[in-house]
């Protein structure tokens, strides 16, 4: 049923679909490892998509659009950080408010751009390599966001596990009182982690509105921010498992569409739910195999320094 050219195209679609989720969830993973649960991912993503598109359309530059999307994600994450980190408000409520604010803002920013289009971010083409069967389009035919997501993943995995900054960040997430007692600026570190999360969510939004479906429409993130949040939980806060989760989710999302096209007679409603079921099942198994590695201990607990 599948020849090499189609297999290559399908796998390339899988990678592209997983990239949005990977970008957004990587940022959230860092924020959560520092102890802040930011439910504003969906809002930061959609604002990134709107600002990214508006900037790219107005300036004609995809690079400026991408940068603007990242900055927009950071700006909205600062709203969250101001509430949750500095005013020590309830993180769940602050995150939800951030998402609602983001959805509204994005609709407002984007309202003048409905029905316009830009050229998609170009895919890499390496003569010879991109034309290889199957691996060519998957490895050498993607847009810059895909490669950025992999580089970011490596940087985050290495940074958290092997650097002093990563150690401090994890310490803040595990026991903020102890980290504070040791003289680490807990709130500043958390703010930086949340900003990193905002930047990644903004980048994920830009991937949608500049590369994946290069136009602007309200609600175009369609809940991907929530999926990204769920992936962080299921990955047990481990970057490499996050990669596995995002790609598994992307793969099942794309494959269920192909299964429908083949007309195997499986109910489409069941197929539509498969990405969620498969990802949950796989990550639950992974988590079960590695017992005792749960959430950062201070996750979601506001920190108020004692003087």
């Amino acid at each position: 049923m599948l020849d090499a050219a189609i297999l290559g195209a399908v796998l390339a679609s899988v990678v592209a679909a997983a990239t949005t989720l990977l970008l957004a969830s990587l940022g959230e993973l860092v924020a959560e490892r520092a102890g802040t649960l930011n439910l504003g991912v969906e809002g930061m993503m959609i604002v990134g998509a709107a600002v990214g598109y508006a900037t790219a359309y107005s300036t004609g530059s995809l690079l400026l659009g991408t940068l603007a999307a990242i900055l927009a994600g950071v700006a909205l994450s600062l709203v969250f950080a101001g509430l949750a980190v500095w005013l020590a408000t309830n993180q769940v409520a602050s995150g939800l408010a951030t998402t609602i604010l983001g959805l509204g803002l994005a609709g407002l920013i984007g309202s003048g751009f409905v029905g316009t289009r830009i050229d998609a971010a170009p895919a890499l083409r390496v003569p010879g390599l991109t034309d290889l069967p199957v691996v060519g389009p998957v490895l050498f035919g993607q847009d810059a966001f895909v490669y950025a997501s992999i580089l970011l993943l490596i940087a985050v995995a290495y940074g958290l596990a092997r650097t002093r900054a990563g150690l401090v960040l994890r310490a803040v997430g595990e026991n903020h009182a102890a980290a504070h007692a040791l003289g680490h600026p807990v709130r500043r570190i958390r703010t930086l982690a949340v900003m990193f999360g905002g930047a990644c969510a903004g980048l994920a939004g830009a991937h949608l509105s500049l590369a994946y479906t290069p136009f602007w429409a309200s609600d175009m993130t369609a809940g991907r921010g929530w999926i990204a949040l769920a992936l962080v939980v299921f990955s047990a806060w481990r970057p490499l498992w996050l990669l596995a989760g995002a790609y598994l989710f992307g793969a099942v999302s794309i494959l269920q569409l192909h299964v429908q096209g083949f007309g195997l007679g499986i109910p489409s409603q069941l197929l539509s739910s498969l990405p969620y079921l498969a990802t949950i099942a796989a990550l639950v198994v992974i988590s079960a195999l590695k017992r005792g590695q749960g959430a950062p201990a201070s996750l979601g607990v506001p920190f108020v320094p004692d003087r």
Partner: protein
Amino acid sequence: MRKILSLAVAVTAGLALAGIGQASAQEKLKAAWVYIGPVGDFGWTYQHDQGRKAVEAAFGDKVETTYVESVPEGPDAERVIEQLARAGNKIIFTTSFGYMEPTLKVAKRHPKVFFEHATGYKRDKNLATYNAKFHEGRYVLGQIAAKMSKTGTIGYIASFPIPEVISGINSLMLGAQSVNPDMKIKVVWVNSWFDPAKEADAGKALIDQGADVISQHTDSPAAMQAAEARGVKAFGQASDMITFGPKAQLTSIVDNWGPYYVERVKAAMDGTWKPTDTWAGMKDGEVVMAPYTNMPDDVKAMAQATQAKITSGELNPFKGPIYNQKGELVVKEGEVLADKDILSMNWYVKGIDDKVPGQ
């Protein structure tokens, strides 16, 4: 979670509207719209909002319109509609199939408010229904697709298995078969009205599987873009999507709600409003075809001729003989399928490989 959020937004918006309503002058007629998606979807909701703007343009200061967007179907919708009714709106349009029961419930509680439900079939003393015969346009699409396809396979991105979508697939297939009896159609259900990335994925999947003309029953231009990028043809939905597929778009079925909305708001003003059941199509200018592009002149001429025949009533897409998938004769030679049977359609015509979901 997303539902809860939308609900929070919707209820907040509803409360805000209620507040505005009490403060404003009473002599203006207040009309409200409830939308399933964002007005910025460039599809279904966008076109309804164009209709709302047509009402504003037609009546100016005499009317005050409001809308609530992205309202989830079900109980959440009921709260929003209730709020709009309490806020003093004289006429309320609810524009998605899933708003049917909520609209009916609220209508019973507010006998002096006129309600209009799009795409439903339940009416009451103060509840009218309206819909458009999109399937008329899809028959034309089917004919064009059969002429333009080299692989003989049409791809169909479907949203939810409701009669409107099933009859759309059937009408497109009947149109295609009228040109080439061997045409095939691949149906992919995305179980969403609006999810651009998923719609694009569905389009790519269909193209990868050999479809070279893509038809969509979802609301964003994402599939059109996917078709443009892969060099195949596509039909737009709800709006003219030519900017998203300058080489890909063959035509687009455009929903033109303005005339209906103007007429109904006027009826509410005049006191001549009645709980009608309106199902308008090409003849009434409610189903409009975007310019026929990217096709040879003979195909264009055929499409125009078919459009003219449907407009004049000479041609009905559901004219017999029509067989179902089991090969049973459903509509006899010379007869046409009754409107109520099209509006409750849950079976496929012969030649469609897919299974109707849930059956």
